[in-house]
């Protein structure tokens, strides 16, 4: 933990070095936006949530104490911000309206469009539909399972770190992740069968 260079950057920011915060922001912004996007399924909302996450980091600087890796702390904040969002009544309505691809100015993975197979109109449509299906399925996972699964699968945190982030024991995290995978598989039944051929 003490060898984490991001901790030193955060401590420098705490001492008034604005450039250190800028470096942390630039390093993590894309990762936090994508975490929020996978969590809530809406890109505009995801950007708002990512900004709120970094604002909380900014405000928390005077009280910052390095008790874990910087990224563990950052994603704990991002998780809390996302949890607040999904508690809002508007969230359910948004979830039901997930039927759009990312905006044009939010470039999707360019590698997908480079793939000749993916460039065919029917393949593009199918890929687009699959993306919607996965986002909807993710949105329908219970919040703790979704949190643990995303922190593990997309962010690569250990069970111990996830336990710190969501205030649960390691064994509870292990169960959450397993159940999340099982449930996601069930929710994606149609996609699953189609891709088995």
């Amino acid at each position, binding site marked *: 933990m003490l060898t984490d260079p991001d901790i030193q950057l955060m401590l420098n920011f705490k001492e008034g070095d604005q450039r250190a915060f800028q470096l942390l922001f630039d390093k993590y912004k894309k990762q936090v936006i994508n975490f929020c996007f996978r969590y809530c399924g809406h890109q505009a909302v995801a950007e708002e949530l990512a900004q709120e996450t970094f604002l909380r980091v900014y405000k928390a600087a005077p009280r910052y104490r390095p008790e874990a890796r910087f990224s563990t702390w950052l994603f704990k904040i991002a998780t809390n911000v996302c949890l607040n969002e999904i508690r809002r009544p508007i969230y359910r309505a948004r979830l039901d309206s997930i039927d759009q691809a990312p905006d044009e100015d939010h470039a999707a993975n360019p590698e997908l469009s480079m793939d000749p197979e993916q460039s065919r109109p029917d393949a593009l449509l199918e890929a687009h539909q699959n993306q919607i299906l996965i986002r909807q399925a993710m949105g329908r996972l219970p919040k703790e399972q979704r949190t643990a699964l995303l922190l593990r699968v997309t962010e690569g945190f250990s069970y111990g770190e996830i336990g710190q982030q969501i205030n649960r024991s390691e064994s509870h995290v292990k169960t959450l992740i397993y159940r999340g995978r099982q449930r996601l598989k069930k929710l994606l039944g149609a996609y699953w069968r189609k*891709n088995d051929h």
Partner: protein
Amino acid sequence: MTIDPCKDETLLSALMDDELLPEQKAAIRQHMETCPVCRQRFEALQQTDAMINGMEPLEPSADFNRNFWSKVADLENRATKRSWLRVLLTGWRPVLASGMAAGIAAVILIYTGQGKGPNPEEVFIAQNMDLLQNYDVIDHLDMLEQWDAIETMKEPS
């Protein structure tokens, strides 16, 4: 402790996440070589992760940075205003404190009657201190009480 993923499927998930001890990992892998059910479950879990990782990543929008730094600027402005207010309040604090202390003292004096001026009896005592210190007079206080009557008596000629 036996390692049996047929009975505890969370072990397969934990194996994927590299959260098991080396001997546990070895035992599960050995088990999967002879158990097609567990092997299939393990592959299914791997496919689920592949789907999650297959979600298209977003690039931050063109105005993401500008919006964020504008929020930071707002935050700093609010903080500056708050600190000015704090300076004003803390600068006036001694004046406010002494004013309040004076007010409280005045209220206490009024309610305890200390501010009404001297008691007439006390004034009388102070003015006649010489008389009161004359023990002859004190010894004949009963005579003083009848002073009016005595004064009207005529001295024998």
